[in-house]
C-alpha cells in the first residue's frame, strides 16, 4: 500500500520534532557512580548463596523504609506461604514435586491468615494478620491488603503500585502516601514467593540433613508433613529455627492448607504460629483494595502534589487562577499553599524570604491577568501580569507590579494597564498536565 503524503509528512515531522541522539553509555563511569548498588548486589549474591536467611530479613527491610510493621508482616506471611509450599513440595518427591511446583508457578493470588499464640498459654491469641495479595503475570506483587492487630491496635493497609493507604481503626487515622521505595522493597520481598528457588533451597536443607520429614497420608482431607529440625538452631537459616513445623497439604491441588510452627517452652513443644492458607487464585473483590477514609477520619494525605488542579478551566483561565491563588495564599500567610503553587517550594523558604529577607507582608490583590502565551516557558506556558499591595517592615505600603513599584497614593488602580505590568510565568506541571504551577517572575 502506498503511503499517503500525510503519513510521510507526519513521519518527517515526528522525526524532526522528537528525534534526539542518545549519548553513549559509559559503563565504567556508571560503575564509579554506583558503587553502593554494586556492593549491595554482591552482598545479595552472598546472601542467596546461604539460602533462605534472606526471607526473614524482609521484616527489618520493610521496617527500615518506614512503611510500618504491618507491611513487614505481609512480607513475612508471603515468605511463609512459599516456605510452606516448599515443604510440601520438596519433602517427599513421591508426593509430586513437579505438580506442586507447577501449581505454585501459576499463583495469581493468595489469601492467608496468621494467628500468633502465646507459647506459654496456647489459648491466648497475641496477634493476628490476614493478607490478600494479587500477583501479575510475571509473578510480581500487583496489590495487597493486610488487616492486622487486635482491638485497639487493629489497622488496615492497602498497597498498590506506588501508593500505600493505611487506616488505624481505633484512632480513625488515615494516611495515604506515595512510597516507591516501599514498592521496590515489597516487590523484592514477594520475589521470595518463587517456589522454584525456594524449593531448591529446601532441597538443599534436606540434602544436607538439616531437616527431617515424616509424611502421614492417613488423613482424608490433607496430607500431613511433620518437619523436624535436625541441626542446631544456630546452623539453620532464618525461618527454620523452630524445632517442628506441621504442614497440611491438599492432596488434590498439592498446595498448602495450613502450617503450624511449634517452639520450645518449658521443655515442651507448644504451638506459636498458625498459618492458614485460606485461598489460592481467588478473584478478590476489587473493593478490597480501595481503602477510603471513614467519616470523621483524620486524613494525612501525603500525595498532594505541586500545583493547582485545572478543573474545567481553560489553559488561560488556569494560568490566571494559579497566580490569583498564590497571591491570596501569601496574603493569608498560608505558605504551604503558596509553596505548592510556586513550583513546590518549601513553605519555610517562602516564609523566611518574606519575613526575614524581604521583610514584607502581602496585603491586597489588585489585578491579575489576562494571561498571554509564553512559549519559552513550554508549549502551554503563559505570562500573567499582576499588581498587589504589600507592606514593608517600616509600615510603608507599596503597589508592586508596575515597573519600579508604586506609591498607592500615586496610582489610579482603575487605569492600570496589564501590558505595562510585570508578569508571572506559569505552566502545567511536567507529567501532570492538569496541574498548574508558577515557575518564576514573582
Amino acid at each position, binding site marked *: 500500500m502506498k503511503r499517503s*503524503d*500525510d*503519513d510521510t509528512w*507526519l513521519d518527517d*515531522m*515526528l*522525526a*524532526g*520534532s*522528537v*528525534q*534526539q541522539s*542518545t*549519548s553513549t*553509555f559509559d*559503563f565504567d563511569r*556508571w*560503575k564509579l*557512580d*554506583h558503587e553502593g*548498588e*554494586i556492593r*549491595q*548486589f*554482591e552482598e*545479595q*549474591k552472598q546472601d*542467596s548463596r546461604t539460602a533462605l536467611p534472606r526471607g526473614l530479613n524482609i521484616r527489618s527491610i520493610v521496617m527500615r523504609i518506614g512503611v510500618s510493621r504491618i507491611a513487614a508482616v505481609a512480607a513475612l506471611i508471603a515468605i511463609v506461604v512459599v516456605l510452606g509450599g516448599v515443604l510440601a513440595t520438596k519433602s517427599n518427591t513421591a508426593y509430586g514435586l513437579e505438580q506442586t511446583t507447577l501449581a505454585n508457578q501459576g499463583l495469581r493470588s493468595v489469601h492467608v491468615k496468621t494467628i500468633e499464640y502465646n507459647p506459654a498459654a496456647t489459648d491466648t491469641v497475641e496477634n493476628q494478620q490476614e493478607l490478600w495479595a494479587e500477583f501479575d503475570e*510475571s*509473578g*510480581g506483587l500487583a496489590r495487597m491488603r493486610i488487616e492486622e492487630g487486635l482491638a485497639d491496635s487493629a489497622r488496615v493497609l492497602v498497597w498498590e503500585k*506506588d501508593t500505600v493507604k493505611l487506616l488505624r481503626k481505633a484512632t480513625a487515622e488515615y494516611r495515604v502516601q*506515595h512510597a*516507591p521505595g516501599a*514498592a*521496590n522493597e515489597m*516487590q*523484592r520481598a514477594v*520475589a521470595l514467593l*518463587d517456589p522454584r528457588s525456594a524449593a531448591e533451597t529446601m532441597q538443599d536443607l534436606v540434602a544436607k540433613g538439616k531437616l527431617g520429614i515424616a509424611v502421614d497420608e492417613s488423613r482424608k482431607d490433607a496430607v500431613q508433613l511433620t518437619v523436624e529440625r535436625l541441626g542446631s538452631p544456630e546452623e539453620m537459616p532464618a525461618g527454620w529455627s523452630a524445632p517442628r513445623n506441621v504442614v497440611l497439604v491438599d492432596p488434590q491441588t498439592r498446595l498448602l492448607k495450613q502450617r503450624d510452627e511449634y517452639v520450645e517452652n518449658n521443655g515442651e513443644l507448644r504451638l506459636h504460629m498458625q498459618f492458614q492458607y485460606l485461598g489460592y487464585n481467588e478473584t478478590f473483590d476489587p473493593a478490597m483494595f480501595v481503602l477510603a477514609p471513614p467519616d470523621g477520619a483524620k486524613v494525612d494525605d501525603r500525595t498532594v*502534589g*505541586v500545583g493547582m488542579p485545572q478543573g474545567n478551566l481553560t489553559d488561560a483561565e488556569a494560568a490566571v487562577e494559579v497566580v490569583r491563588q498564590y497571591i491570596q495564599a501569601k496574603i493569608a500567610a498560608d505558605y504551604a499553599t503558596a509553596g505548592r503553587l510556586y*513550583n*513546590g*517550594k518549601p513553605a519555610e523558604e517562602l516564609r523566611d524570604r518574606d519575613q526575614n529577607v524581604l521583610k514584607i507582608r502581602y496585603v491586597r490583590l489588585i489585578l491579575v491577568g489576562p494571561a498571554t502565551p509564553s*512559549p*519559552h*516557558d*513550554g*508549549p*502551554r*506556558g503563559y505570562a500573567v501580569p499582576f499588581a498587589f499591595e504589600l507592606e514593608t517592615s517600616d509600615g510603608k505600603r507599596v503597589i508592586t507590579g508596575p515597573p519600579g513599584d508604586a506609591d498607592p497614593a500615586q496610582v489610579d488602580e482603575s487605569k492600570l494597564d496589564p501590558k505595562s505590568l510585570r508578569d508571572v510565568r506559569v*505552566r*502545567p*506541571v*511536567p*507529567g*501532570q*498536565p492538569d496541574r498548574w504551577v508558577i*515557575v518564576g517572575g514573582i
Partner: protein
Amino acid sequence: MLCETDAVLVESALGGDIESFGELCRRYYAPITAIAYSILADKHLAEDAAQEAFARALTSLGSLRRAARFGPWLASIGRNVAMDMVKDRTRYRDSAELWELPDRDSPDAIHLAVRCAVAGLPAAARELVVLRYYDNMSYDRITAVLGLSRASINGRLRRAKRMLARALAREGLPEARS
C-alpha cells in the same frame, strides 16, 4: 534472538559477571532513555533516569523471574524512575528547564505543534511514538523493550499516529498542499 541473549546475559550477571550487566545497560540505554524522555520531556533528565533505572535493576535483578523478559522489566523500572523524578519536588525545582523547548531561540512552529500533540497523547501511545522516533529506534529494539509483537507495535503506532494526525488537523496541519 535478542531475548535469548538477554537471558544469557542476565544469568551471567546473576552469576557474578558484572560486565554482562554492563552489556545489558548498553543495549537498553537508548530505549530506556526514550521511555523516560516520553515522561520527562528532557533529554538530560531522561538519561539520568536511565542510569538510575540500571541501578535499581541491578539491586533487584534477583527478583526478575523470567530472564528473557529483562527488557520489559527494565522498561517498567525506567517508567517508575521517571515518574519518581517528576514527583520529586527537589529535582523538579532543580529542573526549571524541564519543558523548555530544545531550540528556544528559533522555535519552529510546526515542530512545536507536533511536540505538543505528542505530549497530549495517552501515556502508552506517547511512549511508543517517542521510542520509535527518538534515536530512530528499530522495531526489533522496541519489541525487545516493550515485550510486544511487531504486529502489535505496528497497530498501536498506527493508532497513535492517527490520534496525532487528528490533533494536528485541529491546528490546521499539515498545511494545505496544492
